Structures are given as C-alpha cells and as structure tokens.
C-alpha cells in the first residue's frame, strides 16, 4: 500500500513537471520586418539631425531684391522650424557644398550671398546623409540631363531604402535675372513687382525618413498658418505611405476574423507588425481590416479602381535568422478590396488556409499590400499650373511665375518612387508562429 502510494506521488510529480515545462516561454528572438518589405522601426526615434542646403547661385538673388515676400525671412524661419526638430546644420551650394558656421546662414536674406554660377543638386545628394532630414532650398532650375542624374541618385539613396521626398513650392516676389534656362542655357530677366500673379516660385526639397518629413511638413504648416491666403504654397509628397492614415498596424482596425486570434508568443518591437495564431491549420482563415484613404496634402493621388494587390510570404530560417520567400502558388494568401465609401473608408480582407499558404513548422511573415497600378498615380493638380513646358521651343513663352520642366521633374520623381520604393495605400503585416 505504502509502495503504491509512493509510486503514485512520483508519477504525479513527473506529470506536473511535464505540464509545467509545456507552459514555458516560447520567445526565440526579436522578429524584424523582411528587408524586401521595408525597414524595421524597432527603436524609438531620436530627434533627427536636420541639414539645410541653400542654393547660392545667382538665379536665386532675385528673391531677395524686393522687401516683401516670405523668402527674405526664410533663413530665420527655417532655422527656427529645423531647430525645434533637432540639431541643425546649414550648407551653401553651387558647384560644391560648403558648411556654414554659426548664424552666417542669415546672409541668405541678402542679395550678396548669391555668387555661385553652377547649380549642382546632384552633389548635394551625394553629400547628404540619408539618416538625416535634408532640406534643399532651390529654384529647381536643372537641365534634363542634370535631373536624370539627380533622380538616379535619389532612387539609390532614398527611395530604394524606403525613405521619402517632399517638395514645398512657395511663390515669392522676384526681381532679377534667371540663368541657364532650358537646353540653350538662356538668360531671362523677371520683375514680378507686387503682382501676386507674377510671383516666382522657389522650392524646398525635403529628403529623409518618412516620419521626419511628415513632422517637418506639419511644423512648416503650423509655422506659416498665419500666411495662408497671403503666400501661395503648394506641396508634392512622394512617400511610400499614400493613404496618410490607417495604412498599417497599429492604426488598422480589425473588424472581422476567422480562425485567428491575437498572439504574442514572439518578440516583435515593430508596431506595424502583429502576431496572430490560428485555431485550425486546415480551416479557411481570414482577417478583415477597415482602411481609410485620406491622402495628405500634396500626396500623389491613387485611382482606387486601379489597385495592384501584392502578396508576399516569408518563412524564418532560425539558423541564419533570415527570411526565405515561400511560394505557395495558387494557394498563396489572397486579398480582396471592398467598395470605398464617401469618406474614403473601405475593407480589405486577407484569406488563406494555413497549411497550404504558409510554411508549417516555421515562423511566417505575411505581407499584403494594396499599391497603385503603374502610371495610375496622379500628381497634385497645381503642378500643371506651375509648369512651363515649352521654353526650349519658344523663348518668348518665358513666364517667370512658372518653373521650366517642373512637371517633368516631379513626374520623374513619382516614377522613380514607383519603381524603386513600395508606395502603398495599405500594408498588412502579420506574423504567424507555425512552429
């Protein structure tokens, strides 16, 4: 009897040990977003470093000639906005890029600062640090050849690394000469006087991490809120996030699901990624999220009837820590898009059968993206109005209130973004632990 009781107790202890060990922590490593999908946002962002590059060529001098307008106070205003974001450095550029000491950048309010003869935007991009927020103040006068060189550099340094570009156009009084216009490098004089219709645009070209660009644009708009209606300002934004809000977790609202539950068995620091578990590996599994298409001011406009559905599945190779693509063919997860209501709300539904669509025995990453079809992304309408297209064909058509080749420049920027980056209205990133 005593022996039996003893054996029973030992058996109970072993059973308890087995059950307790089964409840162990499953965390294996920090899960990061696959490189093919985007950059991980695993750390809290620190204050950005802002580098401001000022075009010091003679064509810019005319913006300082008249006492009115925003340009003359821009050095102080820009310095103030940038300093409120983080450490700020000023540079002047013509053919070369030169750092400016102390508050010497204030000299850009005066015509004497503009002595350079050649504009080399490409050199600025070469010297810019992609981790910083770089702002270029320029009149965007570049030849086609120069510009194709610039877009190539932007592709490699920014868009291919999931970084963004934004352009702010500001119309300002102008009195002076404009050099190197068009293929014939013609020189024109322009005097806008105080006629707002003749004000000449200059541009801020902003490059860097998307969040820093959005932050800068918001601060800029707040700073100049009092000038709304007085100064004509326009925006063109080339960011991967086209929808502005509710484009990825944690902003996406899950409104319906089938065979899925929220899981936190793995350590995922990137808030754009959510882990789910499935109840049954052979049942149809679905997740419906409510998305909102509300493009930010200046964003390229997507045609909601022409969306491309991109689906990628990766399995984690635990030995190398690398994501390997999973090709499930016809069984790959599918994404369906519902109709868009008047406020831009629509549903996107992701469906798959776990044991057919993902790699069982591994940690899987499912990336679903709704992207605009090639050439369906429209530039903001102001671009056409500010564009001077035919200057090479007809020098008499010169209009100083417009920018030569602006449309071509911004279209090439948009096309570069479309080919090198992954602009999307919605990014659904799921991790499923099928180990």
């Amino acid at each position, binding site marked *: 009897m005593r022996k039996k009781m003893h054996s029973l107790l030992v058996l*109970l202890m072993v*059973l308890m040990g087995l059950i307790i060990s089964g409840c162990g922590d499953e965390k294996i490593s920090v899960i990061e977003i696959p490189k093919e999908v985007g950059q991980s946002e695993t750390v809290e962002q620190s204050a950005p470093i802002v580098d401001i590059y000022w075009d010091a060529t003679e064509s810019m001098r005319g913006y300082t000639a008249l006492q009115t307008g925003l340009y003359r106070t821009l050095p102080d205003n820009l310095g103030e906005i940038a300093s409120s974001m983080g450490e700020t450095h000023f540079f002047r550029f013509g053919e070369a890029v030169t750092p400016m000491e102390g508050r010497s950048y204030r000299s850009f309010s005066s015509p004497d600062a503009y002595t350079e003869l050649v504009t080399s935007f490409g050199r600025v991009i070469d010297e810019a640090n992609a981790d910083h927020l770089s702002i270029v103040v320029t009149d965007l006068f570049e030849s086609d050849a120069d510009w194709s060189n610039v877009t190539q550099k932007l592709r490699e340094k920014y868009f291919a690394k999931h970084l963004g570009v934004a352009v702010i156009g500001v119309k300002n009084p102008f009195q002076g000469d404009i050099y190197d216009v068009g293929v014939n490098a013609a020189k024109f004089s322009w005097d806008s006087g105080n006629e707002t219709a003749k004000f000449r645009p200059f541009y801020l070209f902003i490059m860097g991490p998307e969040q820093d660009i959005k932050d800068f644009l918001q601060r800029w708009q707040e700073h100049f809120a009092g000038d709304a209606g007085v100064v004509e300002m326009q925006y063109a934004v080339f960011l991967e996030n086209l929808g502005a809000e509710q484009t990825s977790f944690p902003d996406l609202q899950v409104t319906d*699901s089938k065979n899925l*539950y*929220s899981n936190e068995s793995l350590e995922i620091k990137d808030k754009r990624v959510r882990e789910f578990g499935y109840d049954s590996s052979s049942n149809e599994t679905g997740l419906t999220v409510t998305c909102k298409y509300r493009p930010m001011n200046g964003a390229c406009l997507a045609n909601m009837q022409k969306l491309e559905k991109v689906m990628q599945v990766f399995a984690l190779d635990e030995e190398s820590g690398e994501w390997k693509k999973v090709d499930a063919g016809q069984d790959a997860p599918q994404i369906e898009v519902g109709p868009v209501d008047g406020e831009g709300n629509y549903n996107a539904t992701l469906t798959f059968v776990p044991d057919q669509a993902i790699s069982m025995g591994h940690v899987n990453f499912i990336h679903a993206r709704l992207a605009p079809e090639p050439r369906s992304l429209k530039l903001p309408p102001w671009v056409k109005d500010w564009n001077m297209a035919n200057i090479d064909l007809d020098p008499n058509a010169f209009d100083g209130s417009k920018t030569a080749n602006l449309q071509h420049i911004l279209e090439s920027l948009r096309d570069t973004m479309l080919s090198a980056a992954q602009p999307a209205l919605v990014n659904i990133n799921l991790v499923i632990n099928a180990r």
Partner: protein
Amino acid sequence: MSRNARMGLYMLGIVVWMGILGLIAYEAGSLAAHSFIGTGVNASLQKWQGLYKPLVFIMASISALITVFWCALTEWGFSVQSPWGVGKRTVWSLMGAALAVLSFVVPYVYVMQKSALIMSPIIPVIFLLLFVLAGYWISTIFATSAAYKYTPLFSSQIRRRKGGKN
C-alpha cells in the same frame, strides 16, 4: 500507519491532484481560448492567460478545500448519530453541487472584477469536468475514510473492483 497519518497523506494527495487538474484546466482553457479571444489589440492569448491563471488557481483552491473538508468530515467529523439530520450521501451530494454551482458562478464574478478577461461558457464546463468530476468526485471515491468509503456515488463499484478490502 495510523489513520490520522493516512488521512493526512490523502489530503496532500488531493492538493497535488487539484494542482495537476489546475494545470490541465489552464492548458485546456488556453486551447479553447484560440476560438473565442478574437483579434483585438488588447486581447492576445498571453494577456488572456495572464488573467485566466488566477481564476484557475482560485477554482483549484476552492475545489481542493471542499474535497479536503469532505474527507476531514468523514475522518473526524461524522458520527453514527449524525446531528445533521440528513444522510451522508446527501451531504456529499450537496457539497458536490455547491462546487458545480461555484464552477459557473466564480468565473463570471471574476470577470466582473477583471473585465479584460474574455469569457466563454466553455470555461465553466472545463471547470465542471475537471474540478467537480475529476477533482471532487474521483478524489472523494479514493480519499474518503474507510468508515464512509461507499458514500460517494459509484464508489462501491469502483472500490470493490479494486479489491474490495479498502
């Protein structure tokens, strides 16, 4: 071994057995939760388990307490002329019924305190099966003192089949 020592050992066994049933209830509940916790941001399986674990502990403790109390009554509390006015099986049944009721009441009272815990009727059913049937009933069949060993329902069939002596 004296009767008291043996009963003490039985009581220890009851506590260990309820602990094991608690672990099984935790795992079974977690498995069942896959189907009802949903995909809310604040309702991951791990967060749910964090809230569910104390509930299982409470239920396992209540179950152990009632079962041990029954065994203590049969060893030291009951006499032949019971002042209780009812039969021993009635007492045993009432205690089992009380535990069954608590299996349903405790989870829902607990949810009123911890509103973040998503509850499903499957959880009280798990508690009923594990803590009342596998816990109270089976434990009392084997741990009731020899004087009242046939009081728990079907005890006579099971204990006789085991050899009949005990």
